């Protein structure tokens, strides 16, 4: 599979949108619920604890929480399932928190082989000869494709964004897939809905995103 040959970094992020109290979700609170180890809580790297924003990280996951958004992120594949467990458990405990939507973000940072392949990638996604008359040496910078109605009968969207990857990756392309679910009753308790999706749609979310990226690479490269 082309994805396995070209992937440099795979990042996962789980984003929950709702009415959240950021100051609850701190390292020692998670330890008190036995969701992380004591030494992890003690050694957590805390950026800020503020009533509007809490940002801290462990060795394997970083958390950013504001009043309407909780984001967990990791780029360490062995910890993807653990990140899911952590997110699901947080919202099992905070089951009275009104929640609105859930996003499972799959970010694939690929390293293409050379500058010709890099150019071909952008040119295939969006034919650059359309711009030759108006621009000098046009290049694709960012592309976004959206599936407005999910095909699995859940409310939400499926969004794919293609952009250059981090500077550290040579001929790097980042494909960011946002698997977005909206809950039926906005502003009501949807903790169980989130947990249900995280538990039952988790593997499917990965399979679908990998298939999309592989199909794209097979067609283009």
């Amino acid at each position, binding site marked *: 599979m082309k994805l*396995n040959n070209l*992937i*440099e*970094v*795979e*990042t996962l*992020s789980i*984003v929950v*949108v709702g009415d959240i109290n950021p100051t609850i979700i701190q390292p020692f609170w998670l330890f008190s*619920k*036995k*969701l*992380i*180890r*004591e*030494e992890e809580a003690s050694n957590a*790297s805390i*950026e*800020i604890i*503020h009533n*509007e*924003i809490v*940002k801290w*990280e462990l*060795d394997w996951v*970083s958390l*950013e929480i*504001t009043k*309407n958004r909780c*984001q967990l*992120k990791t*780029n*360490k*594949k*062995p*910890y993807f*399932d*653990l990140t899911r*467990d*952590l997110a*699901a*458990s947080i919202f*099992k*405990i905070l*089951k009275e928190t009104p929640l*609105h*939507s*859930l*996003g499972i*973000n799959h*970010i694939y940072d690929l390293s293409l082989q050379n500058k010709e392949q890099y150019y071909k990638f952008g040119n295939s996604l969006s034919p650059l000869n359309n711009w030759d008359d108006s621009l000098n040496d046009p290049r694709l910078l960012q592309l976004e494709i959206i599936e407005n109605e999910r095909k699995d009968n859940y409310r939400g969207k499926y*969004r794919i*964004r293609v952009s250059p990857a981090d500077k*550290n990756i040579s001929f790097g392309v980042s494909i*960011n897939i*946002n698997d*977005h679910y*909206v809950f039926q009753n*906005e502003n009501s308790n949807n903790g*169980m809905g989130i947990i249900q999706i995280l538990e039952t749609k988790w593997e499917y979310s990965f399979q679908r995103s990998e298939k999309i990226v592989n199909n794209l690479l097979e067609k283009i490269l």
Partner: protein
Amino acid sequence: MDDDTLLRNHWALDNNIENTIKAPDDNNNELVYKTLISKLEKWQELNNENLNIPKCLRNSLSNQTDEPLHLKLPYFNKINSTNKNTYFKKTQNWIGYVEAINDQGFTAKLVDKSNSGTYEIAQFNFDEISKSDMELISKGAIFYWSVGFENKNGQIEKVSLIRFKRSIDFTENDIDNISDKASEYAKNLNWQ
């Protein structure tokens, strides 16, 4: 409410804090100011110094003009994630289920995540388990085992990693609710 669940990479604290701050133009910038004030106050307290934080920065951020504010700030490093340059490549991942425990370790059934139709039986020694996870070992306990290559700031290391699953169990109330919901769905099924 904005229900966007895209990953936000460029958070307020990901940027270098410079001596010139422009007027806020969106919610993220407003949070930059609030977090900056928090950091400045903490710095003042630790260093017993008065930075003369402008009032306009504390109050009514929306009253800011477009003119940039020049401040004399101590040097704050960009908040560098310790993990930014550490990631895994080419991992093989299994989910393990503890089947039996003995004095030396335990036996587990391993399901290959990339090929879930098959499973293997393997033995693990307690030496391979982190001390903090020892209390989680019990018959039926779930763990994650990954073998792969970790890139740590350019240095590649071969890694074998075992971590036991930590999660909150459903309460009896939760199970009752799920069961009620399942019954409701079942009533609405049209069998043909």
